[in-house]
């Protein structure tokens, strides 16, 4: 269940779950711009040990494939008309007008059609708040304590969530699944490949950095204040963050001292691991990316200063419906914004949300991502981006589609720390590609073919080949 669903009925439902699922939905993500993605950071105390819960994702081998004669939005700022994209062994080999297609390659006619990078959602709860949204499935919010940096969303993901199938039909190839926003520290998020799987390890994006979900504002203070405990106010939220970072810094120092001694061959006893502080210490070391759910401009400015005080950076503010009020500050701090175009007014801190948010930020040089946070919207992030584009034009901000496509491809990849591997159509990158029936900013556009690392995972021409999750088997659940 996300913060926004539809209709009178849902409004009532949200009221009934306030403080639970509903409050959880807004989340934020922040990743250092341009930071080279690293292996999932090893725990601070065990630099040499392999990262636990390793990815077992393997790309499905497929024949080399060329899509020819299509309009290609590369997400590098250009559009290639009558272009060809050639994919081989899971990678993009060439993109351009004059690309020779090797004999034996599968060739797909893209005449009249459009090609984009795979869509990337930098804020999702698929698998942790799956469908059907019954209590037995509500695994996204460890909302019994405001400090749960120790929980990992990947330990809640249900790979049989039928909405993964629907998101694939919307062109989504990678997504950041985050814990909910009831807590100040919600826990670690996990970056997934949107591939059919039985275990979450089979979906984990190899080498994607870990992320930490943090939440400002109404959700944590409302969740805990209403139960007579801290935090009950925004100042209580901030105090809670600061105390935690003090603890994390001390924890990191202890481990550093231990590692130094060990390196010198001196006898030393390892401190006891603390899962929560381990995550926070990973943030202070720059290994874990901060994804901060935060709506109001003034609160974001305070949170940036919390980062300055303790020496961490915020990769992205999520939801951030007031980010347009501090566009220059966000540009200076190189903090991305992951937001919507159409959602506003569902709570007080969302009251100043405007459709123009993304365009204003982009015109100030801020890295903008359009995210979903919900099950319906993840299927049509392209349309949400079109709304943001049109609102910008109405406000006198002309943004080219060649740039706007980055809002749902390259920029979320930056937020997730995987932009060197996916998010744009460039030789050497993973062949995450969508073939659209028409211009992807059109409401009429259908994602006809979706490739993940060169593997055709969704094909409207061959409905029988489309993978259905176990939950869909024997039930009338549809791909669309």
């Amino acid at each position, binding site marked *: *269940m996300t913060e*926004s*669903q*539809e*209709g*009178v*009925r*849902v*409004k*009532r*439902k*949200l*009221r009934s779950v*306030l403080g639970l699922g509903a409050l959880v939905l807004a989340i934020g993500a922040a990743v250092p711009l341009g930071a080279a993605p690293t292996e999932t950071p090893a725990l601070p105390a065990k630099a040499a040990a392999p990262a636990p819960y390793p990815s077992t994702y393997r790309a499905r081998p497929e024949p080399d494939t060329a899509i020819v004669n299509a309009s290609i939005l590369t997400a590098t700022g250009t559009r290639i008309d009558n272009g060809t994209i050639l994919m081989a062994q899971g990678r993009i080999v060439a993109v351009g007008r004059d690309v020779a297609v090797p004999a034996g390659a599968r060739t797909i006619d893209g005449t009249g059609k459009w090609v984009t990078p795979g869509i990337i959602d930098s804020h999702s709860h698929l698998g942790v708040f799956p*469908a*059907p949204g*019954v209590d037995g499935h509500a695994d996204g919010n460890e909302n019994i304590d405001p400090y749960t940096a120790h929980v990992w969303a990947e330990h809640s993901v249900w790979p049989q969530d*039928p909405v993964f199938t*629907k998101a694939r039909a919307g062109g989504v190839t990678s997504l950041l699944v985050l814990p909910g926003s009831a807590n100040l520290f919600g826990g670690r998020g996990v970056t997934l490949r949107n591939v059919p799987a039985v275990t979450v390890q089979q979906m984990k994006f190899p080498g994607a950095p870990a992320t930490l979900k943090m939440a400002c504002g*109404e959700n944590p203070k409302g969740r805990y204040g209403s139960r007579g405990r801290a935090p009950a106010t925004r100042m209580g939220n901030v105090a809670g963050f600061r105390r935690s970072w003090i603890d994390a810094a001390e924890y990191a120092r202890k481990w550093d001292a231990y590692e130094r001694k060990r390196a010198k061959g001196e006898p030393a006893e390892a401190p006891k691991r603390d899962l929560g502080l381990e995550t926070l210490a990973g943030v202070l070391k720059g290994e874990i990316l901060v994804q901060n759910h935060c709506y109001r401009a003034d609160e974001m400015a305070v949170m940036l200063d919390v980062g300055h005080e303790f020496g961490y950076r915020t990769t992205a503010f999520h939801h951030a419906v007031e980010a*347009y009020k501090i*566009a220059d500050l966000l540009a200076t701090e190189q903090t991305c914004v992951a937001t919507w175009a*159409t*959602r*506003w*007014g*569902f*709570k*007080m801190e969302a009251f*100043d949300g*405007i*459709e*123009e948010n993304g365009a204003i930020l982009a*015109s*100030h040089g801020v890295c903008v991502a359009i995210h979903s946070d919900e*099950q*319906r919207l993840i*299927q049509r992030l392209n*349309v*949400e981006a*079109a*709304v943001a584009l*049109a609102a910008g*034009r*109405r*406000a*006198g*901000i*002309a943004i080219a589609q060649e740039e706007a496509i980055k809002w749902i491809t390259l920029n979320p990849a930056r937020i997730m720390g995987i932009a060197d591997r996916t998010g744009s159509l460039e030789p050497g990158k993973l062949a995450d590609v969508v073939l659209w029936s028409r211009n992807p*900013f*059109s*409401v*009429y*556009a*259908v994602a006809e073919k979706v490739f993940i690392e060169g593997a055709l995972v969704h094909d409207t021409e061959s409905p029988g080949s489309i993978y259905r999750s176990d939950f869909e088997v024997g*039930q*009338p*659940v*549809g791909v*669309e």
Partner: protein
Amino acid sequence: MKSNRLALVLGALLGLASPQTAAAQTFAITNAHILTPGPVGEVEQGTILVRDGRIGAAGRDVAVPSGIAIVDARGGYVTPGLFAVNTALGLVEVSSVDGTLDARTASLRISAAFDVQYGLNPASTLLPVARLGGITRAVVMPDHDDSNKEREAPFAGKAALISLGEGGNILYRAGTAMVLELGEDGAARLGGSRASQLGQLREIFAGLKGRWTQDNAWGLSEADHRALAPVVGGRMPLVVIVHRAADIRQVLGLARDFRIKVILSGAEEGWQVADEIAAAGVPVLLNPTSNIPSSFDLLGASLRNAAILHRAGVVIAISGNDAGHRVRDMRYNAGLAVSRGLPQAAGLEAITLAPARIFGVADQLGSIEPGKVADLAIWDGDPLEALSEPVAVYVSGKAQPMESRGTQLGQRYAKRPD
């Protein structure tokens, strides 16, 4: 670009045509690409004559009386103003702020007698936002209040029809429909299971044929009894929020047995029983993007629902993505239904004439047709596309301000650094 120029030109012209006088509601829109359900249909180089807030004439060869104000649409699409359903516009400001929620009652004495018309707020900031989506009329519906788990409330209450015109009284017609919810959520309010709810509803409807008595078996208040009387006679439609195919069949049975004029709302699994819905002549209010199997009520929810129902002959109206802040999304939702097989013209009809017909006001609203109210929108592109925007909106022939609190905030912060 082209659309910006159009907006500027229209803005200037509207400035001439918008003084708040009776004469302001008499003007002509020329150079219009008219797109409307009804006999006028699509006219590429058309003219629309508006007289005293009503459509005087529309078509290719319309004589424009000399001396009246002219709005040059410059070839832009002109459609009827959009007609929203399943909204709480005027009844909500901030969804999580209880004091701003007026679409519901927690009263133990009334459910059916609850009437949203008395809570309408013409100053709501949501109205201009919806209007900037081309919306000129909306059905506002009561919501169920579940704060008191002990309360048994069979009905949500009475819906109303509002105008989104600026200023003053927005109520257009009260008592538009009665609202009832079935399925998991409805059952939870009346006995805890489907069989319990449907059984009690049948008893209630049967009891309405007689006079109200204080000791009626279902604890119905006299006010509720009175409110329900026109429903059983078919004089007031009953909107039934329902999802599962089996529940839809039950609703069709209720309608038949008690001669109730039913409107289905939601109906995500309607495609499975499309022929039965069509045969019963029952219309459907739906959101095509409600395709998530979010409960066991709607495992079969599908983006193709709209197209399948339409093909079967069901009259459908398409809603936005919530009851308030995202009502404006209704036109994109119509476009998404078109992308999954709904004919283009049916997509436009589902957000204009079809809802007007469903709620019994098609003689006044829903299409560009001589004699009807001049609710109009001029667009800078295909009205179902998210990339398009309305450049002018008229309610009863009156040009509406093309701004909202949101656009004002945007203008305040949009300036690029020097």
